[in-house]
């Protein structure tokens, strides 16, 4: 049963069958082969109930919020402000790339949206101040990945749905690793620019008066963060309700900056539906496949097979990390998450790993996948925004930050408290 399923999945995916169709057809095939009952019929009921699940309603709402913020121009003043505070460091504006990404991540649930938004503001500066372009682009691709680690996060919502864990807990768990990862990125930049000062571009300084005035530029993103994430912990809103509040706040910001018009709104809505429908078709197919796998005993068989290897928790974790690093090179990250988590998470939980902690580890692995070629979406985004030159520059530039992500995963494995401390303190 396991070899049949695995071979079927591999053949379908490698033939470039759309991921959703591959999962759905595999589910139908497995049901036909291994179940005496017509269990394929549940696909109707299953897709209807998955499709009106209230927690998942947060997904299109967070995507819409990102589409609006991307077009609202809130990132410009924020970026300039952070530059005034950080650009004196060796590495100059590259530190504001990371800090701006981290700050924007606190208003955005998507890494792609974060990289696109900050990249649009930052890239014109790279040439103006003669930075090492590769490292500069790499810092944008890597900084963007913070979007899914620092709450809000679309990926953590999907992880929560797949593993039945709490979104508020996952969001709290992402905060410290997110901030720490931003610092690790900046430390890497600092070392790179101290070793070779010419990477750092022309020096930029600012007066203290300018710096304090720049703080006003931080107000819009802080307001969104308070509304979206604050409302969850103040007990005012569920994650989906918080996402709806975030959409309204983003619309108000866009209106205030004079960028809200019919054309902009219809572009944002169409873009939102395109991403949403694409993700939901995969989720529906994956739900069905998981149901079939459980019904025919395949999920259980896989868990037994892995635990039967007698590897122990640490070796299994190393194996899982390696698996995701390889898979992440070739697979788009949301489909990777939806396809693998329902099978791998139960194995990890059975070995005694904390679901919330594992959610953060998976998120870091997804971040790594976003910047590893050939299929690293953030690399493509940064290259797309840059609009000229060779894609290879972005790939090489992102490589050191891949190292930083590995270091972060190691830290999280050695000190699980980085993730579990906040949820434990706040929610008991």
């Amino acid at each position, binding site marked *: 049963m396991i070899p049949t399923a695995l071979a079927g999945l591999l053949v379908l995916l490698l033939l470039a069958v759309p991921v959703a169709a591959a999962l759905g057809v595999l589910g139908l095939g497995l049901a036909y082969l291994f179940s005496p009952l017509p269990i394929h019929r549940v696909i109707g009921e299953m*897709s209807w109930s998955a499709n009106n699940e209230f927690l998942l309603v947060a997904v299109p709402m967070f995507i819409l919020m990102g589409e609006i913020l991307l077009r609202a121009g809130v990132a410009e003043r924020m970026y300039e402000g952070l530059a005034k505070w950080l650009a004196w460091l060796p590495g100059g504006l590259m530190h504001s790339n990371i800090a701006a990404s981290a700050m924007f991540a606190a208003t955005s649930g998507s890494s792609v949206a974060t990289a696109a938004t900050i990249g649009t503001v930052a890239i014109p500066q790279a040439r103006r101040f003669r930075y090492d372009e590769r490292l500069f682009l790499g810092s944008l691709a890597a900084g963007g990945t913070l979007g899914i680690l620092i709450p809000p996060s679309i990926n953590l919502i999907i992880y929560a749905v797949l593993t039945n864990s709490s979104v508020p807990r996952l969001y709290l768990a992402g905060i410290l690793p997110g901030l720490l990862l931003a610092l690790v990125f900046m430390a890497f930049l600092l070392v790179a620019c101290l070793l070779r000062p010419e990477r750092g571009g022309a020096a930029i300084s600012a007066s203290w008066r300018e710096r304090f005035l720049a703080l006003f530029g931080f107000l819009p993103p802080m307001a969104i963060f308070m509304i979206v994430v604050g409302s969850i912990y103040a007990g005012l809103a569920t994650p989906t309700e918080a996402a709806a509040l975030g959409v309204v706040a983003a619309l108000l910001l866009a209106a205030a900056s004079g960028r809200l018009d019919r054309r902009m709104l219809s572009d944002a809505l169409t873009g939102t539906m395109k991403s949403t429908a694409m993700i939901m078709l995969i989720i529906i197919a994956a739900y069905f496949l998981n149901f079939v796998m459980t019904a025919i005993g395949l999920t259980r068989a896989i868990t037994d097979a892995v635990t039967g290897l007698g590897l122990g928790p640490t070796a299994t974790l190393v194996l899982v990390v390696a698996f995701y690093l390889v898979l992440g090179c070739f697979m788009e990250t949301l489909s990777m998450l939806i396809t693998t988590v329902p099978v791998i998470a139960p194995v990890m939980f059975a070995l005694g790993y904390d679901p919330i902690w594992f959610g953060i580890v998976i998120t870091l692995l997804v971040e790594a996948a976003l910047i590893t070629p050939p*299929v690293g979406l953030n690399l493509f985004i940064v290259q797309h925004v840059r609009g000229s030159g060779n894609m290879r520059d972005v790939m090489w530039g992102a490589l050191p930050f891949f190292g930083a992500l590995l270091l972060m995963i190691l830290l999280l494995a050695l000190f699980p408290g980085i993730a579990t401390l906040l949820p434990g303190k706040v929610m008991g």
Partner: protein
Amino acid sequence: MAEKAKEAPAEAGSIAVARRLAAWLALAGGGLILTAVAIVVVDVLGRRFFAWSVGGADEISGYAFAAATTFAFAHVYLERANIRIDILYDRFPTPVRLLADLVGALALLILSLCLLRFGYDVFAQSLRLGSVSNSAVAIPLALPQAAWLFGLAFFVLVQTVVLLHVVRGLIRRDRGSAADLLGTRPIEAEEALAVPGRAPAP
């Protein structure tokens, strides 16, 4: 025959119509999401400040979300935005690529036909039993399910139109239409986020 020469542009016309309808329907889906946002926000604010609730805001927004999703399926399909793993595909020779495109399109058609067929059962059962939602609003479930099913039916219809067009093209030994309608898209184009004021090329 003169008729035959006319056929090709007419078919391209049917694809163009499908494209326009699908884009419009996706936008309508976006409108449903925006409506869901409004209902949920009114509910949250009402609860907090006036101790008043819409009642069933979560259900209503869930239904809007379900319909919105299927409304956009056809648009995603025509934009070729469904995620495919093209690591080997890019290395295939053209005939194998064509075969892979057809297998992929067929698999997607099978999945969506199943969704439509067994989704219909869900709808028919709600209709027969007169099922209503759990909350105070007591919406007849068949209503949102009909909208949800309509999106699926349109999705299947669009796939059928596209596949007929491709098959006809193949009979005429024209592989171009198959590649244009079913092939993968270069990822850069796929993520063509309409980034305003993007970095000017020097």
